[in-house]
């Protein structure tokens, strides 16, 4: 499954043992795809001495700060953009 810019996505809330690059503060949060960067080897398997293949598409995903931090003190338009690998994203209906 691949995602298009503008598409709404949720960061998977599943637990994960071991190394991964999806920050805990984003788990379960909904944002929208800003761009697809490229595909990269998977840090979750590469960290344990493998070649990290198959490569995983990496997306830049934007989130409203108020959706990420319920008590966010900044402005309503403020956003946070995070690079998230495709296998951590879920389609939002």
């Amino acid at each position, binding site marked *: 499954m691949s995602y298009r810019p503008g598409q709404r996505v949720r960061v998977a809330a599943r637990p994960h043992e071991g190394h991964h690059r*999806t*920050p805990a*503060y984003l788990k379960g949060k909904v944002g929208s795809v800003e761009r697809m960067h490229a595909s*990269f080897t998977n840090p979750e398997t590469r960290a344990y001495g493998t070649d990290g293949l198959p490569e995983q598409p990496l997306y830049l995903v934007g989130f409203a700060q108020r959706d990420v*931090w319920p008590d*966010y*003190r*900044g*402005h309503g338009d403020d956003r946070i953009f995070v690079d998230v690998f495709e296998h951590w994203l879920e389609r939002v209906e």
Partner: protein
Amino acid sequence: MSDHDHDHDHPHAPLTNGDEPAAAERARALEELLVEKGVIAREDVRERIDWLVSRSPADGARLVARAWVDREFNERLLADARVAALELGLDPGPSPVLVAVENTQAVHHMVVCTLCSCYPKGLLGPPPDWYKSLPYRSRAVSDPRGVLGEFGVELEDDVELRVLDSTADIRYLVIPRRPAGSETMSEEELAALVTRDSMIGVAQPAAPAPVAS
């Protein structure tokens, strides 16, 4: 190495140096093991360190100054910062994707790596200690306007703040806004205004010196 019954009774350099922090001791022990297992060579480590300390924010500043004076170069920088850096003969660093984001009257960007300390080292040199500190890494995402205030940056009310958390293979460089009063300055003079912190997005560029009369 499998038949090497290694109980560390052979002589080698001491693993610690006086009062160095525990993290340095751990790094040294890791390096020792990686070299011993043949994963890396000592020369690799020295080459990487030599490369890192040879890099400086002056390179990033050259990119920004060129973008300020050349609209078309700015477009190329925003489209692919790696290619734009190579065009100026600069070393963009080992990361395969380098992204430049532009601060405008309406949008301000700042960069953090909450998971470690990812940073565009090729163009900015080694990251400052505060960039790697836990307080910056946690608060830059949850209270970025508070953090900016502590750096002396107060954004106008109608400015949208965008925080970039570089969690993976991408490196981000901020193109700060060209300061007012710099209209007649040369590209070289402009580059001197572009500070490291302004390319992380936690500061504005230096103000131009008033024209002597």
